[in-house]
């Protein structure tokens, strides 16, 4: 009950502001108008008369697919390389400088390059998402692996673990809490980047719809697209948190995750 109070209050104030005429209707549509546009966007018939009617499901799937593919690449590469960087000084020496340099460049600066290199094509979006969300994942995984308590390494050694197996037996599990932190940040970034990519580099998807709505001056659809992205971003974050809850069962009661 308490959880719903603020969202409902925001909607009521919004409706009140629009209804009272303080803000011109052209600058801010009412929540009801947004809901109506959203309804048509989702359930309306697909016709050549409307650029958006009935396209929501397809656009959601397009954005989702780009996020899933890009983020999967980032997660796999980031966790793998990160743990190696955190554990082997030689790997850290090789990659640390490059990663920190690339990390300092905002991902949006790569958009023109990606469009030139890949063209208006799926791979441009996947590249931006994978490349961008790779950095928080790799940096957190490396930090987690680096902080493996030395005493646990020693414990494993005296229990019979051979040096080459320490990475899998001790370093990886010890790094898991940090890895999940990186995955959450990375996934959030993946949603930022899919919208940027769809606005500028590829066709279809929620970012594309957002940009089209802007060009047609459809503020109601802009707001509906924003809400859609919010719901998907929140949902995917919940999934990662649920996954972390299962994998980090041993931490229950120790952290707030």
């Amino acid at each position, binding site marked *: 009950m308490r959880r719903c109070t603020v969202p409902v209050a925001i909607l009521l104030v919004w409706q009140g502001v629009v209804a009272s005429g303080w803000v011109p209707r052209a600058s801010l549509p009412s929540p009801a108008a947004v809901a109506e546009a959203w309804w048509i966007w989702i359930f309306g018939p697909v016709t050549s008369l409307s650029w958006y009617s009935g396209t929501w499901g397809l656009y959601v799937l397009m954005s989702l697919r780009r996020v899933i593919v890009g983020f999967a690449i980032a997660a796999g590469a980031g966790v793998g390389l990160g743990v190696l960087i955190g554990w082997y000084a030689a790997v850290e020496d090789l990659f640390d400088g490059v990663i920190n340099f690339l990390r300092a460049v905002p991902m949006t600066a790569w958009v023109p390059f990606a469009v030139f290199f890949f063209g208006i094509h799926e791979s441009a979006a996947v590249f931006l998402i994978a490349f961008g969300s790779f950095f928080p994942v790799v940096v957190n995984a490396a930090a987690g692996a680096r902080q493996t*308590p030395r*005493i*646990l390494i*020693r*414990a*494993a*050694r*005296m*229990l*019979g*673990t051979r040096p080459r*197996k320490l990475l899998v*037996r*001790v370093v990886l*599990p*010890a790094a*898991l809490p940090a890895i999940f932190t990186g995955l959450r940040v990375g996934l959030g970034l993946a949603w930022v980047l899919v919208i940027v990519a769809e606005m500028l580099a590829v066709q279809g998807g929620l970012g594309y719809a957002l940009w089209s709505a802007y060009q047609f001056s459809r503020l109601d659809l802009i707001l509906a697209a924003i809400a859609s992205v919010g719901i998907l971003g929140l949902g995917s974050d919940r999934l990662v948190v649920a996954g972390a809850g299962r994998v*980090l*069962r*041993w*931490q*229950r*009661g*120790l952290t707030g995750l």
Partner: protein
Amino acid sequence: MACEILIACRRLGKSYHDIRHGERVVALDEVSLEIPRGQFVTVIGPSGCGKTTLLNIVAGFEQPSAGELLVEGQPIQGPGADRGVVFQEYALFPWLTLRQNVEYGPRERGVPRAEASEIVDRTLRLVGLHGAENRYPHELSGGMRQRVALARVLVNDPKILLMDEPFAAVDAQTRASLQREVARLWAETGKTVLFITHSVEEAVLLGDRVVTLTPRPGRVKDDVAVELARPRDPTSPAFNDYRRAIERLLANTAAPTEVSGG
């Protein structure tokens, strides 16, 4: 057989470079010690006397910078399951349950599943831990964690038990019960034990021998055989004679080298 030397430290030295103070620190100097199979040896000394360094060298965690260490007449090759270590900080794997922590060693050594499960059961019974097997370390009390730490080492049937101030972090009552437990386990299993402590009472209570070390650099100050029947009574006059004698040894070593390190 009674006199077979299991662990031989020959003029062991360990020095390292203290980066913060830019000086060479001698942790151990010319430490010679022979431990026969089956003996319970306690090592006591003021903090910073290198007693943990000695244990780390026997465990294979650190390399001596001088002298040699032989186990069964052979130099050791790093840490191994033949020398089980019980740490003060428990060092249990927090992502494994109690039972998985105990199973860890047998798994790593490639013991077949059925056999491993059997020896794990037996070991858990030995240390009185059945029942809480699916709990994670953070859900256990300090005393129980240390029992798990003991169990996961005993399950490997090591030749040597190395215990590094194992009961320093638990409350007095738990400590007393763990001490009794260790004395009982030692009597039952006949393991050779090297036990580091800073408690004189604990050293006399458990040790066949009490080795005292001097503060930096750590040298063997004295090596006292404790000839008291077990189980020992810490309130008996004979016990107190040993305690007084060892306290005096420690007091003599502590004073003159107490200089500020900067």
